[in-house]
């Protein structure tokens, strides 16, 4: 396992996230859901799977396709309301970020079953949050996956907050992984700020799924250090002391201590990599600004493969 590669991916995610927040502050994109602190979970998961495995994403994993080659500016274009952000899922092995909570979980099951039926050995990983765990679709998807023995890993980022709702108001269990037993699948909770722990747990679940052992639930325990999104003011519902405590535990600095201690990295190399990553994201921000705006025609594009004539009805015949 290449720990340096894992670290570089985390640094790339951090640079993407901080640049995105800046772009929002500067009015170059609209509201943006920061994932500051959740880099370990996302990078480790991408490394724990094969390129041919698919990832089913929530809005907070909007940078995961970037780890698989989507240009950052195209990912950001989504947050300026630009359809040029749309991409081919099969090109990156990523379903587009899903806005309605947990509704992408059944898609992961369907994709995984579909690949199995066609003789493939791919695995689907579905990201969702602690809030999303309360949605009916999460339950239906986990039950379906177990009944079908579908090769799916349900990866819950339990950051203890769903906008203003704390985990204690979301569920009456201490750990969401306890629910796995009710679906007849293995469940485990790991430290979501420890990339090696996440990688180990996800890799084990992925291997089990690939071998035909069915789905698993992995809960990555962490804390949503940032606001829900750029428009959110957490001081309305939580104290800064708790957040400050978790901020000290954030995954990148902690991982760097380990890597420097093990002699894999020097402090200078750490600084240089952050510098490099943030420079790359600055350049991507400029590319975003120079992306042409979408045209009215694009509003009607691809709604249907076979649009009826005359089309688009409402655009051309609005009168």
């Amino acid at each position: 396992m290449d720990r340096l590669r894992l670290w570089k991916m985390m640094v790339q995610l951090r640079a993407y996230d901080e640049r995105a927040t800046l772009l929002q502050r500067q009015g170059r994109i609209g509201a943006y859901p920061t994932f500051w602190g959740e880099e370990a979970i996302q990078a480790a998961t991408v490394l724990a799977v094969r390129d041919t495995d698919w990832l089913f994403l929530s809005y907070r994993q909007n940078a995961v396709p970037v780890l698989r080659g989507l240009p950052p500016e195209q990912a950001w274009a989504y947050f300026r309301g630009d359809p040029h952000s749309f991409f081919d899922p099969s090109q990156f092995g990523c379903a587009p970020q899903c806005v309605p909570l947990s509704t992408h979980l059944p898609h992961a099951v369907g994709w995984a079953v579909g690949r199995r039926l066609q003789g493939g050995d791919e695995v689907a990983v579905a990201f969702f949050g602690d809030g999303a765990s309360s949605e009916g679709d999460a339950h239906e998807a986990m039950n379906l996956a177990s009944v079908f023995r579908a090769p799916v890993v349900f990866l819950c980022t339990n950051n203890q907050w769903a906008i203003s709702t704390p985990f204690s108001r979301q569920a009456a269990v201490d750990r969401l992984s306890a629910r796995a037993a009710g679906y007849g699948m293995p469940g485990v909770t790991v430290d979501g700020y420890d990339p090696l722990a996440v990688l180990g747990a996800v890799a084990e679940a992925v291997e089990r799924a690939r071998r035909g052992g069915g789905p698993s639930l992995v809960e990555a325990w962490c804390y949503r250090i940032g606001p829900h999104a750029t428009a959110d003011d957490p001081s309305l519902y939580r104290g800064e002391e708790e957040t400050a405590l978790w901020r000290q535990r954030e995954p990148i600095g902690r991982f760097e201590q380990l890597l420097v201690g093990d002699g894999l990295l020097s402090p200078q190399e750490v600084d240089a990599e952050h510098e490099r990553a943030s420079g790359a994201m600055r350049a991507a921000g400029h590319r975003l600004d120079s992306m042409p705006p979408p045209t009215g025609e694009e509003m009607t594009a691809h709604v249907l493969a076979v649009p009826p004539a005359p089309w688009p009805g409402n655009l051309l015949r609005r009168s």
Partner: protein
Amino acid sequence: MCSPCHRRHGREICSGVRDSRPMTTSSARLDDADTVTLVQAVDAALEAELAADPRVVLLGEDIGRMGGVFRATAGLEARFGETRVIDTPACEAGFVGVAVGMCLAGLRPVVELQFDSFSYPAFEQIVCHLARYSWRTAGTAGMPAVLRVPYGGGTHAPELHSDSPEALFCHVPGLVVVTPSSPSDAYSMLRWAIRHPDPVIFMEPKRLYRSIRGTLLGDTDPEGLLRARVIRPGTGVTIISYGPSVPTCLEAADVLGEQGVSAEILDLRALWPLDEEAILASVRRTRRCVVVHEAARSCGIGAEVAAIVAQHAMFSLDGPVIRVAGLDVPFPMFMLEDLYLPNAGQIVVAVEEALR
């Protein structure tokens, strides 16, 4: 660019291909292929497409060994196995979502929703994903799924087993909504729907499942299946309807004929997109228009048809457009359903009003 489907995608299996293979009628399991019921036609169409295309899979509650609550999938699990005719747990949102994922994997799922009202739990998946995925992926990930929805009343069914939710689906951009009114249309239209690259809501008039018989024809004009059809030509008034109300309109036309009124009956077949050309052509000819459906009146298909006629054929009309529709109430408990459902007498009265 994928040449058959004109989409950009990197999948090895293209799920968006418009299938132009001939539809040969396969009726091996039917006793008498010449006269089949509508539900047998559905079964035969599913069988033919399962046989023709390994990407086709069926999903739904009790569709396997049991053959579905209406027996629309009778015998299919035995022939194609439980990996292609898949019994699901009771979770409509879940298995419609699974169908979305299967489309992403290159399959062509055909989902049975057991009854009209049990499409409601799946509504979020239909609206947020099935209808939007092609758009959301710049046309790279189409959704060639079919949702089969047995709908409508008149079967003395319990509460929430008689709804007509077709207009709800028509209001969702990104879906095609069709409904047959005869066994031959059910067969051809379902086979067309399964081959169509966009998501199709296939509304099955459950009252007609066993009450009418017809023949199975491989329709030679697949595009024609989105066109309305004049099923009885006439000159004095156009009665526009679809699905379960069509036989009622035919009954009314017989009565009108005895009164010397020649009624033309137009079966819409596709509810979205509506065949405006056919609607306008007929109304311009007869100069009178009555629209009939059992779904609630407000914001229904009749309102849309009336708006089209008002905008484009206003000066061809010699009378008001009249709607004969269900009431704006929950579908009643079945002791009252005959009072709720449009009947031939009401259609005759409406025609008289349109002719006044």
